[in-house]
């Protein structure tokens, strides 16, 4: 058994170099496809992080009555914070609210209308961040029930719905696109390996005629495909590592705000590239040789 594996590996290695043109062509195709796949993976990860970031921005805002006693407000804040679906609760008092409003206006280059006012028209608010933007129901109900403190609860339903529809759409679209690209990659690589094997149909035929068993014919080919995959994956990883510096510059420029963990991303990417490369190489050979052995 061990000698069979050793034999198959040796033959795979020889096969790879004897058909150098084929092997290099297949490996190059593999590299290109894996780079394509990686690019997609990175872009999708970025998109996903962006979407998560947007979703985190969904807040439930409760405007408080000007006449609500501070103690009750603190009480309500604690009650809300205790709810399981709430991530954090922030209390913005009236002067802070006005200050924030003024700042916003200034940022947007708008006229500061508040300068014409002599009292502060802005209410104090409780800004509640949710763990999952879908689950605002209980929070809103709890807030609405406390009419002694809460004046109005901003209607977030619409906003939440709209944001979630868009993010889900983008996510689904991204996944479908990744799937399509993945299928393309799969098909092209299997195809390339199949072409390389077709060119060796005669070799397979002769092996069978001199009494080689199917396993004997199949495994060297499969190892050869895996070798193409491994080599392609390694070259891809080197290319990605080389391209990482300028790319992450560009990335941080765009996604500065996004909580993208580059460490785990690149770990995932390496695993994806290696698994896809070797997997596809192996499957490609398997499929290609199969059709000859079945005849």
């Amino acid at each position: 058994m061990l000698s069979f594996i050793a034999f198959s590996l040796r033959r795979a290695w020889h096969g790879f170099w004897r058909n150098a043109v084929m092997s290099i062509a297949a490996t190059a195709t593999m590299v290109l496809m894996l780079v394509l796949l990686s690019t997609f993976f990175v872009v999708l990860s970025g998109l996903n992080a962006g979407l998560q970031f947007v979703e985190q921005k969904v807040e439930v805002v409760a405007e408080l009555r000007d006449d609500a006693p501070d103690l009750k407000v603190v009480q309500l804040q604690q009650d809300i914070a205790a709810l399981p679906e709430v991530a954090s609760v922030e209390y913005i008092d009236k002067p802070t609210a006005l200050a924030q409003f003024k700042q916003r206006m200034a940022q947007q280059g708008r006229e500061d209308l508040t300068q014409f006012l002599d009292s502060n028209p802005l209410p104090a608010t409780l800004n509640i961040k949710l763990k999952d933007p879908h689950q605002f129901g209980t929070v809103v109900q709890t807030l609405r029930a406390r009419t002694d403190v809460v004046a109005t609860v901003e209607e977030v339903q619409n906003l939440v719905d709209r944001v979630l529809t868009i993010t889900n759409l983008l996510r689904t679209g991204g996944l479908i696109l990744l799937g399509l690209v993945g299928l393309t990659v799969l098909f092209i690589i299997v195809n390339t390996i199949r072409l390389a094997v077709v060119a060796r149909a005669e070799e397979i035929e002769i092996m069978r005629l001199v009494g080689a068993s199917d396993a004997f014919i199949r495994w060297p080919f499969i190892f050869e495909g895996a070798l193409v995959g491994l080599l392609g994956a390694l070259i891809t990883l080197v290319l990605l590592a080389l391209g990482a510096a300028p790319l992450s510059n560009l990335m941080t420029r765009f996604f500065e705000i996004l909580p993208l963990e580059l460490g785990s991303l690149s770990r995932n990417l390496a695993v994806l590239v290696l698994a896809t490369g070797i997997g596809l190489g192996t499957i490609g050979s398997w499929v290609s040789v199969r059709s000859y052995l079945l005849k």
Partner: protein
Amino acid sequence: MASPNAAPPRAAARSLRDQPAAHLIAETPDEQAILVLHDVTKTYPNGKTALRDVDLVIPEGDFVFLVGASGAGKSTLIKLIIRDEIATRGAVMLDGQDVARLNRRDVPRIRRKIGIIFQDFKLLPTKTVQENVGFALEVTGTPHRQIAPAVARVLSLVGLSAQASQLPSQLSGGEQQRTAIARALVHDPRLIIADEPTGNLDPLISWEIIQLLSRINELGVTVLMATHNAEIVTALRRRVVALEDGRITRDELGAAYHRED
């Protein structure tokens, strides 16, 4: 009729000359026959019938010349034996097994009992001479360290030691043919099937190869050889099976290439 001066000893004992092949089957118990064809017909998918109602029994240890014009069906008969093609009708029994009924997985095992010299050599173009020959041992799972000496031995037998590490494309026609012969001999098969093994060889080497096959045959290995080499067939006076248009028209012991009456 010319007396069979070079006939092997067994030939005199069995006088089968001019008897129809069907009788042959009745007389020879199947256990002794390494190869039995019974009523075999082969029609190719394009409608061409290459063999018609062929009956043939080859006892273990026999040396049989298969002769016949170009296109008579010699190679087709060989292809049926090694199950490269499957008979349209009739049975091909190799060593007691019906090759058509063989499980796909058992085909390689049957083929390893045979040493086949193909008419078109069928060498692997990306392997050197010694790799091509060693290959027939590798497939039987022979340990690596036993392969090299065995290969060296047969290569020197066929006179190819100097070309051991050349690729087939770097060989002369005769050298390719001798590589194919070496590959067929290297795993000590019980049956050697040779399809025109001297077509590209000069008379001297042809004789050497035939003498080699004769010596191997004397050790008990059965030899079935399709050939057009009238000189050799006539000189050796062995059993001759003649095909004509897909039918066996002659099956004589100690015969010549051409019919002699």
